């Protein structure tokens, strides 16, 4: 998909991350996107937070997943044969943890 000559824009290499590191990255990006669009304070993502009730619509979540792909080097939603539709933040995080590269 990326037709720019290699070298100019290196694809991110997936790096192993712990669950807490993944959680921190996802929350940071979520809050960054929130502040791009709105003036109020971002909601706190807890384990049982229902994703569709955060004020982010599915378009915003799709953008979050795309930006996480650019940053982390993987998109779990395009990696699995079985479709996954996480409803809570914990399920979302579980899915990233399950698909993240494991330390050698």
């Amino acid at each position, binding site marked *: 998909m990326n037709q720019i000559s290699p070298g100019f824009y290196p694809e991110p290499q997936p790096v192993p991350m712990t669950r807490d590191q993944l959680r921190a990255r996802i929350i940071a990006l979520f809050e960054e996107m929130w502040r791009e669009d709105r003036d109020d304070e971002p909601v706190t993502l807890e384990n049982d937070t229902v994703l569709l009730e955060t004020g982010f619509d*599915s378009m915003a979540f*799709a953008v979050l997943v795309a930006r996480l792909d650019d940053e982390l080097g993987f998109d779990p939603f395009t990696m699995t044969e079985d479709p996954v539709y996480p409803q809570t933040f914990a399920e979302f995080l579980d899915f990233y943890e399950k698909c993240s590269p494991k330390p050698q």
Partner: protein
Amino acid sequence: MFAQAAVKPIGASIADRQLSADQVLVEGAGRTIRAGDLEELIGRGAAYVGKRIGLCLTDPFDCVSAILALDGHADTLLLLSPDLPARVAEQVMAKAGGDHILSDRDDLPGAEPWGDQRLDEVTERALARNTQWLLTTSGTTGMPKLVQHDHASIVRSVRTIAKAADARWAMLYDPSRFAGTQVIAQALLGGGTLLIPDHRLSTGETVDWLGERGCTHVSATPSLWRRILMAPSVKKLALRQVTLGGEIADAAILSALRGRFPEARITHIYASTEAGTGFAVRDGMAGFPADWLDQDVDGVRLAIRDGILWLRPAADTMTSAEHIERDAQGFIRTADRVTVDGERVMFLGREDMALNVGGTKVQVEAVEDVVHAHPAVAQCRISARPSAMMGNLLTLSVVPKEQAVDAAALKRDIASWCRDQLPAPARPATIRIVPEIAITAAGKQQRAVHG
């Protein structure tokens, strides 16, 4: 028999069934239309006999009620998406030669509210007129194109879906869209009830509302289905009919729906504003059987020429528009790219530069024009990136005029520039600052487009 049914207006067809007066036909948030309300409702439509009426109603309940009242009275119903900017809505009305515009918006000059029509103003009584329907193509940029349907092409698909008097259909499309008209026709001519959720609810609240009302039949785009599956209250839905349309229904979403709704019949419909309803696939697999290319399918004929699907609509489906490309045999060029893969014909996407982002067609070149106008941008290129939730998202590559630019600041600035000028699906999800953009031999920017 079908030819006779075809000219009968929707409201009159329901009235003919002699339902008990308290039978609910349409249920909205706190409002209903019962069989006993029909006569008065249709009477209100008679205020517009023979007129060319534009409908631009943000409230889908009002839109359905106006359609029921006006079909068979109005000469032409011009269905305008409530999202159209006022200036565009006025231009479309002028182009269509509309006499009246009925709207609940306050930014449309001369708009009349729907619902104030008094019966004593009616001078001409109802005629079973073959109302022409003018629909606009979906899209986020530029002037929408108008496509004319006659009444038969709107109600034709009712034949292909089994009638069920106890069906409770969810209205999740805007009624002004072709797919929306199909849900209205199937629910009400099929003998069922149409459930219209408040359009201001979130997806989760909508699913909850539908579950509480015993919804059994849902028609939605694959993108909307993915959202529905993410709503915790999806477990409240006991569906018997799952219909997909408007985008490619891939194997993943079909299998997810099969898992969630094991009792439901799953149908994906190929239809377009231009061609009307094409055909329905019911075997739960993506694409359609290759042997359909050699036979009549629900009255439709299919052909592949140069990798593009051509479709000859059923004989009683009459659509017309300036931009439709039709050959001497009546085949319409759909602009959908397809490939034969064994015994299946699979959809690859649109051949033009339109990308489908969550069910909305985005004209890639129009987005590039917006980005090009940014003072710091020398060159830019939009490409598609696959998204499990939206089908596609846009990735923007930008070559800045000054190479020594602060990339992070420029990305933020371009993102904000796009937010001010483009609707959400047309905004790039990710932005990359690059030193150059590859050019093809033909001198065009390379672009990877996935339907």
